[in-house]
């Protein structure tokens, strides 16, 4: 949930309570004011009536004045000075009882005592409530509307640096070995966040580089002992007195040493690609590269009875390190042959800004997203190193080429898009 929506929800919840309380207070206040006013008006009228009645003779005239608002009856008993009371009188026009407030007071006229009652209609409670509610609703709506507008503005203006920062972070890639710089702005919190993230990434970058260099150095260090093992084995096998069992042992050890050495070589290449150590870039004709590599694989293709379909009419030139370009193509072709049927088909196509290498083959056993992972093998028993596609992936990442893989109708298809030509290595 967005922060704004969340804060808005809290705002709304709190404001609802406030408005509810406000409504009750409004109601009480209104009612109080109206009551006071009513009483005040009644008393005013009493003064007036008292004055009028003291001057006139004909109380009767007033007696008939208005049944609803005034009644004057003669009274024998002694009355209290003032009685304020609420009553309801049936209104024959509206056909309902209407609440009235009445003020009862005694008036003496010509020695006779009268009980005077003057009344005013009370504004009905539900009318007040309706008024208050209407007011509240209008206020509440206005409040929500202004809140929304303000928040929208705020999120656009105040939060903009934050979203910019997010964009920068989203685009940031650790393995590109670039320092992260975030824009500063007028908001202290965001600036603190920016410095914090920058410090963190610098540290991570540093650790990352050390790690990569360690892998590379380790691989280098492993080369020498491996060279010794291999050469010693080679000297050993020249001995004429070896038994078959001994040769078996040597053969096993040699094979393992070779495998180790290949593995090490592949890891070293991978580390060096990731450490951006292939600086020399030249113009390479992809078509020539493919043709040359395919020559190397000629026998293999023939042996597996693979039909090779080439569509190389479109000429494509890329700027790239030659060594990496060769590895890229060799790995892709090697894979296309290795995971092919026999007899099978390989299609190599150069299109505008991309190459497509597709081959017949069984459905991959691994999940698609794992296919380019290290040491992921199609067949766990195979002697393959499981580093071919990761190397392809690493090269594509360095040059920002797009690498896509699909499996459709028994065909594996790898596409490399070279559209990002401005790669820096």
């Amino acid at each position, binding site marked *: 949930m967005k922060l704004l929506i969340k804060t808005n929800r809290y705002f709304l919840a709190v404001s609802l309570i406030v408005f509810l309380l406000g409504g009750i207070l409004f109601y009480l206040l209104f009612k109080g004011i109206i009551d006071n006013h009513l009483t005040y008006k009644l008393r005013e009228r009493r003064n007036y009536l008292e004055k009028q009645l003291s001057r006139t003779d004909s109380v009767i005239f007033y007696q008939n004045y208005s049944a609803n608002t005034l009644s004057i009856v003669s009274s024998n008993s002694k009355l209290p000075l003032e009685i304020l009371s609420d009553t309801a009188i049936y209104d024959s026009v509206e056909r309902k009882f209407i609440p009235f407030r009445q003020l009862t007071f005694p008036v003496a006229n010509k020695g006779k005592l009268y009980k005077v009652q003057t009344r005013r209609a009370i504004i009905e409670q539900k009318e007040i409530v309706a008024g208050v509610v209407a007011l509240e609703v209008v206020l509440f709506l206005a409040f929500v509307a202004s809140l929304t507008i303000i928040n929208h503005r705020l999120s656009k203006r105040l939060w903009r640096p934050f979203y910019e920062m997010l964009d920068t972070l989203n685009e940031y890639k650790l393995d590109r070995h670039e320092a992260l710089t975030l824009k500063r702005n007028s908001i202290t919190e965001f600036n603190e966040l920016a410095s914090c993230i920058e410090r963190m990434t610098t540290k991570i970058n540093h650790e990352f580089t050390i790690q990569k260099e360690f892998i590379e150095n380790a691989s280098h260090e492993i080369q020498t002992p491996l*060279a010794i093992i291999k050469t010693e084995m080679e000297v050993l*096998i020249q001995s004429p007195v070896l038994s078959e069992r001994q040769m078996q042992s040597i053969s096993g050890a040699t094979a393992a040493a070779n495998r180790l050495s290949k593995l090490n070589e592949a890891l070293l290449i991978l580390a060096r690609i990731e450490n951006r150590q292939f600086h020399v870039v030249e113009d390479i004709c992809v078509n020539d590269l493919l043709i040359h590599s395919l020559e*190397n694989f000629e026998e293999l293709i023939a042996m597996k009875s693979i039909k090779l379909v080439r569509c190389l009419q479109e000429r494509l030139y890329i700027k790239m390190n030659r060594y990496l370009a060769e590895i890229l193509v060799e790995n892709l072709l090697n894979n296309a*042959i290795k995971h092919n049927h026999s007899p099978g088909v390989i299609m190599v196509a150069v299109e505008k800004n991309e190459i497509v290498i597709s081959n017949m083959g069984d459905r991959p056993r691994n999940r698609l997203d794992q296919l380019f992972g290290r040491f992921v093998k199609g067949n766990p028993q195979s002697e393959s190193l499981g580093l071919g596609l990761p190397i392809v992936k690493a090269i594509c990442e360095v040059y920002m080429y797009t690498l896509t893989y699909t499996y459709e109708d028994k065909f594996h298809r790898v596409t490399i898009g070279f559209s990002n030509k401005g790669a820096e290595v």
Partner: protein
Amino acid sequence: MKVLIIEDEETLLRSAVSYLTSAGYICEEATTFAEGSEKIFLYQYDCIIADLGLPGGNGLDLVHALKASSPHAGVIIISARNSLEDKVQGLELGADDYLTKPFHLSELNARIKSILRRRKFGGSKEVAFNEIKIIPDSFDVYVNQTQVVLTRKEFNLLLFFVANRGKVVTKESIAEHLWGDYTDSVNSYDFIYNHISNLRKKLLDHGSRDYVQTVYGLGYKFGEI
């Protein structure tokens, strides 16, 4: 043929010397930069094999000094660094070849042979082994004066075998020699078998004796049985 091997890793040096000596070279050794430059200064060699990372200096400087004192000697650089820059720099300084560790001794031997052959002025550039005659420049092969038509791979294989005659060469070293570094060795072994049996058949058909021996599980040996 006098060969100087400059390598600080003594075990590696020892096995290289042992292999190359048995292949018919007279080997001298040096383990430091100083020792290497002294020997280069004092004696004449046909070929020098120099490691790049030496105690006391860089092998590249050694190559430089060597080219100044005895320009006719062949130079092979060996290095644990498979770096294109080093390779280019080494070759520019006049090195004839560049081998990355770990390498096969049979490969080193084949490279030395090839360099010596190329550097041999005036003399015959043929390689002969009993009734087999190989002319590397034109890729021609003769058995008892009749020409044998070989594919490029078969030719390279034969040359590699003859260079390492009498030695057991492993399948891996053959694969690397024929296909280079990046070919999946798993795939290559079947071809090696194919190529060897084709080569063998062609040689036999032209009246050669059978020189190819299978060494159980390890590889092959080319030589008189």
